[in-house]
């Protein structure tokens, strides 16, 4: 991660329809709560050695949402989900470049995948 990594200047409400972040470079990210939960990077969800384990989508409710989102240092956000799961630290890099579902980022990702 570059030190000039953008940081969130505003994190949307946990009661919003989707997860929203406004970044220090002006970009606005959005991501569905379910996609965010499925992407949880913690060892419980991913395996301790990043062995390719993923979260089974059928194990997560469609209306999953966090109760709280906290900032961790200068690099990540930590949601506490409705069931108390809170071990995932979502790095700013991940939120900005891997999970963002805004029109622009989605288009850029599908263009990369097509190549």
């Amino acid at each position, binding site marked *: *991660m*570059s*030190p000039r*990594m953008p*940081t969130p200047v505003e994190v949307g409400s946990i009661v919003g329809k989707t997860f929203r972040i406004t970044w220090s470079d002006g970009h606005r990210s959005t991501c569905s709560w379910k996609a965010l939960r499925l992407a949880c990077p913690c060892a419980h969800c991913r395996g301790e050695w990043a062995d390719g384990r993923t979260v089974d989508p059928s194990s997560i409710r469609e209306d999953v949402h966090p109760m709280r989102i906290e*900032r*961790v*240092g*200068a*690099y*990540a956000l930590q949601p506490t989900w409705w069931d108390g799961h809170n071990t995932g630290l979502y*790095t*700013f890099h991940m939120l900005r470049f891997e999970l963002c579902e805004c029109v622009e980022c989605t288009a850029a990702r599908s263009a990369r995948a097509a190549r």
Partner: protein
Amino acid sequence: MSPEPKVSREQVLDALRGVEDPELHKSIVDLDMVKDIQITDGRVNVTALLTISACPLRETIVTSIRDRVRSLPGVGEVDVTLGVMDPQERQALITKLRGGAASPTRRSSFLTPESPVRVITIASGKGGVGKSTVTVNLAIALTQMGHKVGIIDADVYGFSIPRMLGMRGRPTMIDQMVVPLEKHGIRVMSIGFMLPDETDAVVWRGPMLHKALTTFINEVHWGDDLDYLLLDLPPGTGDVSITIAQTLPQTHMVIVTTPQAAAVSVAQRAARMADKVNIEVMGIIENMSYFQAAPDQPPIYIFGRGGGQRLAEVQGVPLLGEIPLDPAIREGGDEGTPITLSAPDSPVAKAFRTTADKLIRRLPVPVA
């Protein structure tokens, strides 16, 4: 004969504004420590409240109250009566120190991303490169430049800052607030102050380390006039480093290495960690760069040459300084008077000052 001028309560109170609490660095009037002033025929009695009854600096307070008041015209004798704050008064004081009634739970100012305090973590890959030596000498150099500096000795197992600065004693606790100890104008917090004696070992697992560190950051009253807070990390990328990365919303890192390749390649991992947790590396300091027996002798590169420069190039950051080897550095550390203070004109002290200067050019204190 003209009548002696009468001194008023207001004049006494005004004089007392100049008396600072030696630990909290604020006027005792502003701290609501002056409880009562009685004046009878030029004899003044001041009743002052200490924060805790065991206040180690009570004599200092009494003396400065007496001196200030006695210098007023028309004052004969000065009596000082000391009392102790009750729990409510202490809570009110803590609330005041933490930034006012509106936010009694407000945390240390450097826990907000907008904090004006420049927090600099001093890191290394491997141990024994002289991180703590660099930390104390940089702190002295910054103080000499007129900055207010604090040090958190985060090397919980291998703490050495208290010895290097010749510090002893226990920090004052005002309820849950810890007042750091001070020496050479530098405010310091170290796990060493909490142990029965210096040789005691800290045998703790991660969660205890985490608690100690977050206490140093959250509960210690660093003062609102701090410019730079230096954080001496333990070597490597373990528990303490992670706690720091997860607790401080804004911090910068300086990496200390020695010139040899073995040290440089490990130091690179500290830089890698900084990348992962979005901490900007401000530069590299190469310690033990060379030894020069006398000014007219050629330098001897005991640990090889150019490691710091190479690391700086790989990381794309500046080399902030090359500190030569000198037995006087070690002696200064052992005796508690860092060389930058005891021999300010020595080449080593100059090297530390140049380094500090380069560092703060990259990280100036914001102008209010």
